[in-house]
């Protein structure tokens, strides 16, 4: 059986858990990483010297990088509805995944760090104004795409393009700070929540 190594509260582990439920692949999960068994232990290092979660072990095939794993699972299950076989549509799906994990994620990071990772008391932590402004700028870009091409990032149907972005959207709404109105993003958040896998691993109360 496929094993996921990684704590279930990590945004990158959650992408993989979400995808596993989308494709209906049974799996075991072991808690590793910050707050759990440290990835510096030999049992983890033997599988990956990179020391970050998630990794998967699929019958001896060990893979790291959350979005690589998501794409691997789509291929493994031939889910062309989630990851188009046509190379052009496939590349556009990847461009949204890359954008969400680089430019969008980087913009979300300072606020998340101030409010959660580095906060002495997350219940009273305040979001830094410049961080919020930069994150909001990127969220507006998402809002524009969903308005023009939605209701999902690749158009009419849910694809794996929505997994990395969906996790950042969850973080946006789950953290308490003043945000600009982004109607298309708000609608998207509810539309994703129609999926059980997103309610379990994404919109589950954890930012």
């Amino acid at each position, binding site marked *: 059986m496929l094993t996921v190594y990684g704590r279930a509260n990590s945004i990158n582990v959650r992408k993989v858990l979400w995808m596993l439920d989308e494709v209906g692949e049974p799996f075991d999960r072991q808690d590793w990483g910050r707050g759990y068994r440290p990835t510096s232990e030999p049992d983890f290092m033997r599988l990956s*010297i*990179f020391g*970050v979660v998630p990794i998967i072990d699929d019958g001896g*095939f060990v*893979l*790291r*990088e*959350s*979005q*690589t794993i998501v*794409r*691997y699972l789509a*291929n*493994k299950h031939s889910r062309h509805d989630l990851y188009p076989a046509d*190379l*052009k549509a*496939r*590349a*556009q799906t*990847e*461009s949204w995944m*890359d*954008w969400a*994990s*680089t*430019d969008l*994620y*980087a913009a979300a990071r300072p606020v998340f760090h101030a409010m959660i990772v580095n906060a002495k008391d997350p219940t009273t932590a305040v979001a830094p104004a410049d961080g919020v402004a930069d994150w909001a700028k990127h969220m507006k*870009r998402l809002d*524009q*795409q969903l308005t023009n091409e939605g209701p999902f990032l690749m158009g009419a149907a849910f694809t794996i393009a929505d997994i990395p972005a969906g996790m950042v959207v969850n973080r946006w709404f789950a953290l308490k700070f003043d945000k600009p109105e982004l109607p298309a993003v708000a609608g998207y958040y509810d539309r994703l929540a129609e999926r059980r896998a997103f309610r379990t691993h994404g919109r589950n109360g954890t930012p």
Partner: protein
Amino acid sequence: MLTIWGRKTSINVQKVMWAVEELGLAHERIDAGGPFGKTDTADYGKLNPNRLVPVIDDKGFILWESNACARYLANTYGLGTLAPSGPEDRARCDQWMDWSITTLYPDVVPSLFVSFVRVTAADRDMAKVNAAAKRAGENLALLDAQLAGHDYILGNTLTMADIAVGTLLYRYNTMPIERPKLPNAEAYYQRLSARKAYQTHVMIDWQSMKIPGA
């Protein structure tokens, strides 16, 4: 005809251009971004609403995000060469490509390169520079381990994984920072530096990009 939008000094454009040349594709590159501007025009906004470079236009098919562009070109024109054909090797390529943009890039480009090029020496945050240099060195030690016993990341041929990771090595190796001794990674960088496509598209001197006082 394939068109690539973006100035040749941009690292993300360099990645795509290197792939284009390895694949031997007829193309035209249009300068955009940085001193060339153009990215703020309405027409450019239609190509890439993010207003960044690179963008590719392959006979009307528009794509942005450098890794997605490199992977698209490799899958379309380089199956069996830059794009390995088996699913597991594809996934292995992918994991290095994702690693390069999510883990290595943030230290090498926004933290280090931008600090040396866009910030004056007087304003430069050396604590940030040193921390990023240290992390980049630690991350490259993982590449060094991967390269033991073979010439390229996946084995003995160049793939798109090398293009994504290798593009960052010129910046990393030409900045005034402390670098740990990593024999395999160093030999790999020399091996890449011997390739004409790498010389032409990646080894582009960046001193002239510095702002006054940087």
